[in-house]
């Protein structure tokens, strides 16, 4: 599902409410018919959130960042990460502090998580920011894989999706003064 709307319409705010970081003034967010505020831990098991602030520490290397993320989410961090880093175009850069990398490469360090999780629901805020064309296409391939595996994706983007998603729904928020 794509969330569209002009700058300031509240896309990010809505995503943060759905991810459980902010409270809505009215109403409740349900996941599998259960309120996420009450069952947040179970919801968090099935949630992958990558926001504007990606959660990548710029002092650490790409490899350290990925391993840390795996550990705090209870995944096996001792697995061989090189094939995945190679796939996303970060090989040779895995031991460089992330602050030395370009914006697009830093974004890729965060996006590696998409290949390393078992969450059903992905909430992605502007995932294509700073990515090059091949990166965008590559990411959409991964989206298709995830959807075919029965997952759901909620994202905002100002770029047009180049891949055709058969069951894409678009919700447009309007800017209100």
């Amino acid at each position, binding site marked *: 599902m794509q969330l569209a709307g002009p700058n300031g319409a509240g896309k990010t705010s809505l995503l943060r409410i759905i991810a459980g970081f902010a409270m809505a003034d009215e109403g409740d967010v349900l996941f599998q018919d259960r309120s996420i505020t009450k069952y947040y831990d179970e919801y968090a098991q099935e949630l992958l959130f990558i926001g504007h*602030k990606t959660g990548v520490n710029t002092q650490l290397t790409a490899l350290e960042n990925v391993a840390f993320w795996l550990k705090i989410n209870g995944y096996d961090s001792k697995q061989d990460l090189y094939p995945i880093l190679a796939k996303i175009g970060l090989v040779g850069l895995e031991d460089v502090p992330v602050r030395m990398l370009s914006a697009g490469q830093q974004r890729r360090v965060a996006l590696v998580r998409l290949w390393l999780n078992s969450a059903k629901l992905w909430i992605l805020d502007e995932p294509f920011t700073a990515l090059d064309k091949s990166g965008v296409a590559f990411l959409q391939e991964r989206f298709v894989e995830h959807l075919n595996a029965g997952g759901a994706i909620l994202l905002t983007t100002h770029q047009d999706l180049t891949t055709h998603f058969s069951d894409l729904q678009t919700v447009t928020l309007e800017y209100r003064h």
Partner: protein
Amino acid sequence: MVKQHSYWQLFSAVFSKDLKLAFRQRAEIVNPILFFLIVITLFPLAIGPEPGLLARMAPGIIWVAALLSTMLGLDKLFRDDYHDGTLEQLIASSYPLPLTVLAKVAAHWVITGLPLVLMTPVFALLLNLESSALLATVLTLLLGTPLLSFIGAIGAGLTVGLQKGGILMSLLVLPLYIPVLIFATSAIDTSSMELAYSGQLAILGAMLIVAIIAAPIAISSALKVSVS
């Protein structure tokens, strides 16, 4: 991708990440000790090098210096994680946030508090602290500095989202530091009179246990408020 819940894995990941970062930017470790040393060397210069007077004032000076140098690093405790989005990832992790917070505060203490405890015997020489009071000083610092880290982290968590939260944090935290200061210096005073000071130590220990149990929960709530 199989999930395997291990609280120890979470604790060690957060703890070792903070230590690793501190060792990469050495200023974080060196600054509090340097500040501590500067305060302690300036006092004899300012009030005169009379040994009796210095020995009398030493416990107070050491404790005030320790308290202020702990506060130096507090501002940084959650700031980087807040700005780069790591805090959101930690909240969205399926592990309980208080455990994460406990690991972060423990790392903060190892970086700022523990070096002070270890250096105190050396610095105490500069203030002519009596040997009978030295043990009491080290013991009170050992119980008191982690307490300062826990209390301070509540303030740091509440103010992390603010632009200039440093001053507000000091105002929030300092009143809560005063009981620690009173009991710690009272223990050292008692010890220099060659009396038993286990009572004050017991109170500090009790406060520390309450802080270990209750503070992580308070800090987690404060962080969630700051992130939203």
